[in-house]
């Protein structure tokens, strides 16, 4: 139990996917202009990540390993993730057109969100069992959501700031992301 809790905390804070593994930077920078949108993106990623991890775990464990097709891992995983994203896109478009609008191009881009593939692959690499896989991917996804929401808050504030011309836009966003990542390094050593 403690193990799982530690795994969870570690995946949310210590090894935060965005801020210390630097995965999933694309939507992190792309969809963090408004807090609401960031939150929507976060939840879309949570869903895709969890379901993708579970499905890929089963595929790897019961299909690829037994058949000795480990080399198909990447392509099979991407196939699964892509289909899931397509599904999410359809659902979001139907359920919340506003969110669909706001997420725009970044919704289909979850497909290529390396964080999603990263989690799926890490689960296999670290040889996690099913429960661990679920905990790890939920943690990673929440970590992603936490990072993107915090970052969106900061960027909304930056929007109102008198940033020097040379730093406007992405430049200052990257500086801020760097400092945020710096702050998260404080958690280093916590729950390895």
């Amino acid at each position, binding site marked *: 139990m403690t193990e799982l809790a530690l795994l969870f905390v570690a995946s949310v804070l210590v090894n935060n996917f965005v801020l210390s593994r630097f995965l999933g930077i694309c939507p992190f920078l792309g969809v963090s202009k408004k807090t609401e949108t960031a939150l929507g993106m976060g939840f879309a990623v949570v869903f895709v990540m969890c379901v993708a991890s579970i499905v890929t775990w089963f*595929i790897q464990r019961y*299909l*690829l390993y037994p*058949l000795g*097709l480990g080399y*198909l891992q990447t*392509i*099979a995983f991407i*196939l*699964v993730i*892509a*289909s899931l994203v*397509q*599904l999410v896109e*359809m*659902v979001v*478009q*139907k359920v919340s*057109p506003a969110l669909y*609008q*706001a*997420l*725009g*191009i*970044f919704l289909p881009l979850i497909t290529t969100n390396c964080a999603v593939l990263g989690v799926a692959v890490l689960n296999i690499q670290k040889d996690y069992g099913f429960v661990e896989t679920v905990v790890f991917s939920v943690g990673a996804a929440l970590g992603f959501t936490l990072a993107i929401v915090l970052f969106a808050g900061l960027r909304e504030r930056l929007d109102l700031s008198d940033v020097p011309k040379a730093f406007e836009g992405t430049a200052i966003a990257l500086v801020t992301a760097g400092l945020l990542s710096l702050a998260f390094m404080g958690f280093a050593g916590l729950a390895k």
Partner: protein
Amino acid sequence: MIEAALVLGGIGFLAALGLGAASIKFHVETDPRVEEVAEALPGVNCGACGLTGCNALAEAIVAGGALPNACIPGGEDVSKNIATIMGLDAEKAEKFIAVLHCKGVHGKAIDKGQYLGIPDCRAAALVLSSPKGCNYGCMGLGTCERSCPFDAIHMGDKGIAVVDAEACTGCGSCVRACPKSILDLRPLSMNVHIRCNSPLSGKQIKALCSVGCIGCGRCEKICPVEAISMSRGLAIIDAEKCVDCGMCAQVCPTSNIDDALAPRRDLLIEEEKCIGCTKCAKVCPVDAIEGEKKEVHKIHQEKCIGCQRCVQVCPVDAVMLGAERPKPGAKKKTSEAATDG
């Protein structure tokens, strides 16, 4: 090998089934034009339009939330294509530009006092209506400058806005931003403008600004086409009626009316060059040009107002600028100028 193909094919097949079902269940009606417009856009998702991507812009255009020319990188071609899809008239209308109806530069118009506060016209208008003595004039705090998306209006150092006619696209952003409605859109071809916005009486204006419209009505009287009307103490030119003759500018006692063509000159047609295309005769607002097709045309000097439209349309540069024309009411003008001086 076969296994690999089967496994991938199987996963793919299952996913396809699921997605197919989902696409039926979660089907959303979309306007077919959205796809067409999206097709017409460059598709680089650069975000220059301010939206998240080309699809978002396509939807905005179809929904009416964005103009067909919202895609800046796409340029004119893209906007034309989109306009066609949207069934809009892509034909170019006459170009308009923003015109400032105030001439109250530092030294000519007095200030109420030393204004301290937000350097924005709309905010400054809340403090005693305007930092300038004249409550109708340009405050010079640059709200229009900041509102201009094309960097076509600048404050300069004289305390009033200056429109860059080249850069101005006539989008009207500044007109909407100006709290005093000093700016409006006028045809680019117009050369004569009244540079005052104050309805105050002559006596009141003179105390506040030496170049304001005092409402004397001389321009109204001299206007050959009744394009000028007096509204309280302010002369207003009707752009539809104005023939750009510039006579009003010549009689204005406070030199408020600007004429970009001043001093006006006689116009003459070079007989050797004229090919008798009749273009000049058609464009002349006062029918001062006479001539049959394929014959040399002639300008009647007593009718000509020197607006130079014939100069612009002549395909063979046959219309020449002649001597400076005498001012109508020149005598009055000099005496006024002396007292004003």
